[in-house]
């Protein structure tokens, strides 16, 4: 008996609509996050993540509506990230029906927000999202730098140190996204995963670089407890989650 490796599709949501669309057959509306969430639930997703990329905060209300409707129809865990800056933001998401919130830039800017959130709601609600890239800067001992604003801005902060600090501060999970691997479809940055694994004992969700089912076992071998991806699921065959799980299972890890 042991806990299954979680396979998590991530949907980018802009003003209540899925960005870039999803290429599933038979969908009435490929831009409807609720319909996609139901579909992913039906094909075996272990959790769902919505990343709110809405630029204008005035349109953020639509995200809450999407979270609300999804949580009423899909009975697997739902994480929502994007635009989370405070404990009050987390409160609104939880009240709408999210199970977890993920925080990124706001925590880099003001690390105290981690304790503010976890003291109020517990560690289990908070996922620290780390967008990290390789760096040759000698001031970064791990060789991985935290970036913000979707990987566009370097923070000068060591990614492994940051993960350790955030785990000590009470985050329940770390979503580790490799900016270098993201979009390459050439596989995960397993060295980065292993470096963070050695530093923290909270669960790690690995992200960035998945291009084929065969890429996933290496991320798990490096220490990931869960794997998150977007395009491989959105644009792959409809049974891609099952194929990824099969690859993970064949490598000897438990899946649901």
């Amino acid at each position: 008996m042991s806990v299954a490796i979680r396979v998590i599709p991530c949907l980018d949501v802009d003003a209540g609509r899925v960005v870039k669309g999803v290429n599933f057959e038979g969908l009435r509306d490929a831009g409807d996050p609720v319909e996609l969430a139901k579909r992913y639930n039906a094909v075996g997703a272990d959790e769902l993540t919505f990343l709110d990329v809405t630029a204008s905060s005035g349109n953020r209300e639509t995200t809450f509506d999407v979270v609300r409707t999804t949580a009423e129809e899909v009975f697997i865990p739902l994480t929502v990230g994007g635009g989370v800056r405070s404990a009050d933001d987390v409160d609104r998401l939880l009240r709408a029906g999210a199970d977890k919130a993920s925080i990124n830039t706001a925590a880099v800017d003001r690390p105290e927000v981690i304790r503010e959130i976890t003291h109020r709601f517990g560690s289990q609600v908070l996922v620290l999202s780390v967008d990290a890239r390789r760096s040759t800067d000698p001031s970064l001992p791990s060789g991985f730098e935290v970036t913000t604003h979707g990987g566009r801005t370097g923070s000068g902060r060591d990614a492994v140190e940051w993960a350790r600090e955030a785990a000590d501060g009470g985050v329940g999970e770390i979503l580790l996204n490799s900016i270098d691997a993201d979009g390459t479809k050439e596989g995960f940055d397993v060295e980065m995963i292993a470096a963070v694994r050695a530093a923290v004992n909270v669960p790690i969700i690995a992200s960035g670089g998945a291009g084929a089912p065969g890429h996933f076992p290496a991320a798990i071998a490096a220490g990931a407890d869960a794997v998150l991806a977007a395009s491989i699921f959105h644009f792959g065959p409809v049974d891609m989650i099952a194929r990824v799980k099969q690859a993970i299972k064949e490598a000897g890890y438990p899946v649901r």
Partner: protein
Amino acid sequence: MAGPRVTVLDYGSGNIRSAVRALEHVGAEVTLSKDAKDIREADGLVVPGVGAFASVMQALKDVGAGPLIGRRIAGGRPVLGICVGHQVFFEEGVEHGIRTAGFGEWPGTVERLDAPVVPHMGWNTVDAAPGSRLFAGIEGERFYFVHSYAVQKWDFPVAQPRMTPPSVTWAEHGSRFIAAVENGPLSAVQFHPEKSGEAGAQLLANWLGTLA
């Protein structure tokens, strides 16, 4: 035909919409409330709970839930605890060295899990108690857990005549811990059935099936 009436105890704990919707999904008529009348009169009472043991106990005290829950149990009226709402029925919780008394329906201490990765987060199997009604037909399924603390020792005095011991379902993360207890009207589960997809829906349906 109207389904069983269930009150989900509303005392300010995290995401309870999902519990309400999941129960409705399997046919319950759900009221979200902390009023004594709703707690007393429902066919079933669900006690949710996330976060710290001490703060959940405090919040339950603040709404005066303890005596109302106790009265339901004494009267044989079904109660289902979920996650920290499961843990509070044990004797005590220990967090960061601080001990907090629970409702003490069952012996045992809620303590931090000793595992390489904590929180225990994700879908795990259970070792269902023989004859379990909650797990009937779903003994081999996985359920969604999110917790860092659990009861890892069970010392129920089995030598008491005329007393049916609670039936205990175990799971494992680092060490074995109690995943569920079924004890007459009182049942409790460490995982989140409302987040456990079809298997969780079946467990909730099984519980509804036990309601008068």
